[in-house]
């Protein structure tokens, strides 16, 4: 034990007395470890964000949108959750309240229907104003979309019947227009109309690509008749009674709407029905590719870091070979030499690995703070990066030592 402490002591001496070489060696390990841990954390975070997002949308969701069926569900998915931007134009929309009635009557297996009309509008309070996504909805919006009020109340049947000018605000909108004041009971100007705030939505936060809190809800009837003067909807969200029937319900809905719209040929179909499960799958594929890409970049930096370590160690071989010759001349055994170099490169590599991990933790904190995005550190990636970098560091640290220790002392001393 005392002997080991002795070796450790002289290894630390050696590391300290050769700052340049030690620093460069550690740098290689640091870069390798930090990049892998960070990249994997970002990839993992992206995946988690998508999954959370999906869950926050509500389960068993079908989304009916006007327009021809798009090629991939993903595009529509992004369009629907495109944050502050407006929905599809009402002038081209083919979905109406009649469609909602027809679906309610003719399709079984539905839990609830949530029709909506979405538009990007200007909201003004005093001298504060902001552009946000204003959505006309019915009281079934919260259960279908898994998004409810935190304070006050959501839009009720009474609001709907009376076409009342009330509004429920997302938290981001509250922050922008009211700061820390309580907005309930206060007035907001939306498109020339004065709306009274009756509720505040729960905080959903920044989720990946858009901010779900940047939104305002008003009664659908008010939106259609008093604000927009139309009967067109920008989407109908449907929650299905049983998840395993989602695909059948989708077929039923398509049939009913084709009939309602008097369309014979599906080529002329003027709406499309998105199955959330499918969208999720496609999106998962996307994030998987993304993670793979990040992993690839990280693997490259790991290898570059490893090559850096290798270079430094090999470049210092001349100097070290002579050193080994001297040490042998003053009584070192082969074992002493190997031990010394092993401890030295282990200390260097492990130290570098630790710094790399700390650095990646710092990076994750920064990302989480500034990108509003939850990067998640994976233990597996830490172990992998650490094993590889430390392995390379140790291997190339003792390889020259091993070769030199095998030489005649005099050959090591003469080495140029």
């Amino acid at each position: 034990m005392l002997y080991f402490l002795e070796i450790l002591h002289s290894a630390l001496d050696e590391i300290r007395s050769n700052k340049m070489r030690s620093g460069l060696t550690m740098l290689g390990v640091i870069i390798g470890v930090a990049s892998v841990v960070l990249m994997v954390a970002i990839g993992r975070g992206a995946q988690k964000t998508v999954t959370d997002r999906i869950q926050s949308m509500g389960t068993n969701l079908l989304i009916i949108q006007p327009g021809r069926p798009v090629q991939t569900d993903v595009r529509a998915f992004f369009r629907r959750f495109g944050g502050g931007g407006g929905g599809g134009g009402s002038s081209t929309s083919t979905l109406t309240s009649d469609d909602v009635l027809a679906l309610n009557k003719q399709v079984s297996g539905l839990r609830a229907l949530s029709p909506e009309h979405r538009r990007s509008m200007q909201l003004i309070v005093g001298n504060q104003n902001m552009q946000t996504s204003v959505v006309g909805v019915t009281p079934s919006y919260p259960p279908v979309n898994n998004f409810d009020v935190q304070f006050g109340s959501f839009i009720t049947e009474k609001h709907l019947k009376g076409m009342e000018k009330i509004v429920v605000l997302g938290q981001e909108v509250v922050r922008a227009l009211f700061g820390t004041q309580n907005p309930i009971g206060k007035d907001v100007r939306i498109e020339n109309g004065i709306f009274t705030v009756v509720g505040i939505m729960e905080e959903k936060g920044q989720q990946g690509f858009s901010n779900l809190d940047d939104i305002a809800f008003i009664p659908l009837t008010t939106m259609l008749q008093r604000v927009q003067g139309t009967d067109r909807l920008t989407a109908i969200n449907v929650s299905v009674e049983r998840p395993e029937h989602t695909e059948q319900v989708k077929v039923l809905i398509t049939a009913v709407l084709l009939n309602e719209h008097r369309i014979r040929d599906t080529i002329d179909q003027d709406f499309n029905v998105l199955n959330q499960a499918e969208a999720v799958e496609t999106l998962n594929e996307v994030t998987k590719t993304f993670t793979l890409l990040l992993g690839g970049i990280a693997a490259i930096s790991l290898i570059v870091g490893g090559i850096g370590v290798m270079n430094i160690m090999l470049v210092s071989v001349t100097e070290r070979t002579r050193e080994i010759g001297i040490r042998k001349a003053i009584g070192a055994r082969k074992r002493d030499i190997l031990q010394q170099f092993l401890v030295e490169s282990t200390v260097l590599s492990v130290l570098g690995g630790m710094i790399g991990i700390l650095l990646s933790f710092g990076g994750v904190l920064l990302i989480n703070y500034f990108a509003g995005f939850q990067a998640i550190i994976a233990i597996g990636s830490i172990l992998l990066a650490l094993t590889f970098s430390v392995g390379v560091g140790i291997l190339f640290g003792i390889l020259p030592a091993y070769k030199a220790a095998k030489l005649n002392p005099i050959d090591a001393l003469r080495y140029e």
Partner: protein
Amino acid sequence: MITLHAITKTYLLGSQELHVLKGISLTIHSGEFVAIMGPSGSGKSTLMNIIGLLDTPTTGTYALEGKSVSGLSEKDQAHVRSRRIGFVFQAFNLLQRMNALHQVMQPLLYQGANRQEAQKRAEDSLTAVGLADRMHHLPNELSGGQRQRVAIARALVTHPALMLADEPTGALDSHTGGEIMALLDQLNARGVTIVIVTHEQHIAEHAKRTIHILDGLIHTQ
């Protein structure tokens, strides 16, 4: 103390054999002070390295203190180097970036001494060569003569029975060289066997016996 019999050393350079030592037989007694002289390239350093167990002869037998060292394992050779032999080189061969004190402690640490004891003995050794005030200097912060004195302190800290010095004054001016030789004289007076390689007659005069080597063979002794 040292008995060499028919030692040869041959290097293979490609297909060419280079006979550096061609059959050296030599006895050096305990407590002797021997100088080896000879023209450059005659094989003096090669012989010294073989005596110091840094190199192995191609053929021939070598007994140190009555025991054959020819067939010793690498580990046992290291043990003999560590316990019995001190080496001083023309080029000093100090460890870079290691201060004088640590430099001199190193051989003791390889013997398994603990740090306190090693430090104390290293301090004594450095004081003995007149470097009490330079213990924490790095090699590149010392003059040539001071470096060689560190090397000597490092060689004698283990109390070796045999001190080998290959042109210890070769890189020093004659005054500094004289100081180094005075140190070696002192050591010899204390009973340490000393073998020294030199090109200079006045250095060789410190020895009680001079061996002349010519072209890999002993010319006169």
